[in-house]
């Protein structure tokens, strides 16, 4: 535990030691605002909720989270610090968890800084704050799933650009799998079971289920098991590829 905390601390400091953290947060906030107010028609809808804000999160994360995760292992491998890092008296899972948690906490900080949005709806009307809290939680879980994916991909390459592109591509598949457009493609010819399987595998489906206001066990299990499986893959990839 102590080692994980130390690694999280180092990683978080590293984020804020470069402009990366500030650029990321600013762009995240600006994009989140633009999408909510201009694309999501926040005012025209006339409803005091944050639905237009959360709807765009999968797409926002699709672009921004891989930028956060791409450096996690690729940078260590490129600069050779991985050799220093992994010959310190720590266990591999501590290294993997520490790096992931730091990125996840950072994503949480960026997300938390959208709080003026929440203040705004409360000022304008009487939103269901329970739903909003649940949606924030779902959004954070979703960012964790994409981060875990990005961390695993980052462990497989020395090249951060490759890590970014591959992560975004895989995340895209997982996000769109549950959208009506994609499910429509399967409608009519594919067996129902396949359609349900595609919908069940989709990040989008589970995310929108929670943002509608119901936190159900299967949705939580979905995100947590995805994160756990990807972190395990991350550890295996680090071990396999560290010496290349």
């Amino acid at each position, binding site marked *: 535990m102590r080692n994980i905390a130390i690694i999280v601390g180092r990683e978080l400091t*590293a984020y804020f*030691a470069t402009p990366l953290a500030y650029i990321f947060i600013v762009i995240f906030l600006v994009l989140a605002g633009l999408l909510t107010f201009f694309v999501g028609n926040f005012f025209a809808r006339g409803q005091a909720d944050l639905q237009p804000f959360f709807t765009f999160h999968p797409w926002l994360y699709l672009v921004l989270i891989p930028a956060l995760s791409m450096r996690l292992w690729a940078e260590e491998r490129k600069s050779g*610090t991985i*050799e*220093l890092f992994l*010959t*310190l*008296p720590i266990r591999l899972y501590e290294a993997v968890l520490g790096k992931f948690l730091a990125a996840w906490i950072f994503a949480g900080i960026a997300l938390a800084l959208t709080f003026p949005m929440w203040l705004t709806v409360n000022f304008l009307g009487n939103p269901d704050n329970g739903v909003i809290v649940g949606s924030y939680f779902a959004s954070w879980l979703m960012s964790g799933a994409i981060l875990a994916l990005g961390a695993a991909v980052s462990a497989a390459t020395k090249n951060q650009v490759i890590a970014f592109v591959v992560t975004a591509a895989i995340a895209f598949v997982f996000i769109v799998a549950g959208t009506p457009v994609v499910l429509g493609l399967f409608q009519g010819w594919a067996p129902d079971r396949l359609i349900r399987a595609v919908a069940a595998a989709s990040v989008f489906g589970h995310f929108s289920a929670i943002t509608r206001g119901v936190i159900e066990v299967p949705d939580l299990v979905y995100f947590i098991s995805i994160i756990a499986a990807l972190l395990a893959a991350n550890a295996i990839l680090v071990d396999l590829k560290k010496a290349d």
Partner: protein
Amino acid sequence: MLEIRNLVKRFGPLVAVDDVSFTVPKGEVLGFLGPNGAGKSTTMKMITGFLAPTAGTALICGHDIQEKPIAAKRCIGYLPEGAPAYPDMTPAEFLDFVSHIRGMSGKEARRRIEHAVELIHIGEVLHQPIDTLSKGFRRRVGVAQALLHDPEVLILDEPTDGLDPNQKYEMRKIITAMAPEKAIVISTHLLEEVEAVCSRAIIIARGRILLDGTPAELYARSRYHNAVRLGVPLGADARVTAVLAALPEVATVEEVDDGEGHALLVFPASARPLAPVIAELARAENWRLTTLRVERGRLDDVFRAVTAAQAA
């Protein structure tokens, strides 16, 4: 303190390290020599637990690096090849991080960091990002990191690479000063370094140990070992060569023209010292010698002979 047992590492069909075994007791500084790609770094990576060996293992203070990696890693201070360090951190932050991971905290961590900083002389750059440091300072930060927890075993992969002559001298002094308390392995391709700091040297090429001995034993293997260098006036060499070549103690006489000028190298036929014989002869024959010196031998010569024989 450090025991390497039959280490083997294969990368596909390539055998990078082939059955390497040696032990390093406390107080010894082992120089690990070899051409590039000989398997020096790969061996060090296996000793420190970064790479898993294909076969064999390493015991560090009695802990098997394979079975008890955490206990073993605690006993090692390691400077990886190229002295990697987090570029965005300052040395102070970096050493802080390593000290915490190494289980130190509070006052103790501060004391150890201060000690290492003072020993390695990195005080002036302590708060500059590592990214902006010169190669020499970066290397020193890497060494400071390896020394932080006062490890019993030190593995330094090219500790003086990229340092200027003064810094090299400093680094060697530091290594020598620590030697009595630790088992130290340094890799290098600078032969002078072996003489300067090592109490024992291993030459490795293509993953195999070719030679294992003290620097003196290495010198003894040189064909120049115990040869006598004679500086003779111009025009006199033919006569001198003829007289010397006739001696039963002399195997051959060669003319050399090197950085030190023109001279004759007289190779002994046996282990008997040649210098007194030649000195006496010179007096009798009334040669006006400018130099008379017994050669110790040349390490680069030994190195080339040993590694070239293996390549053939």
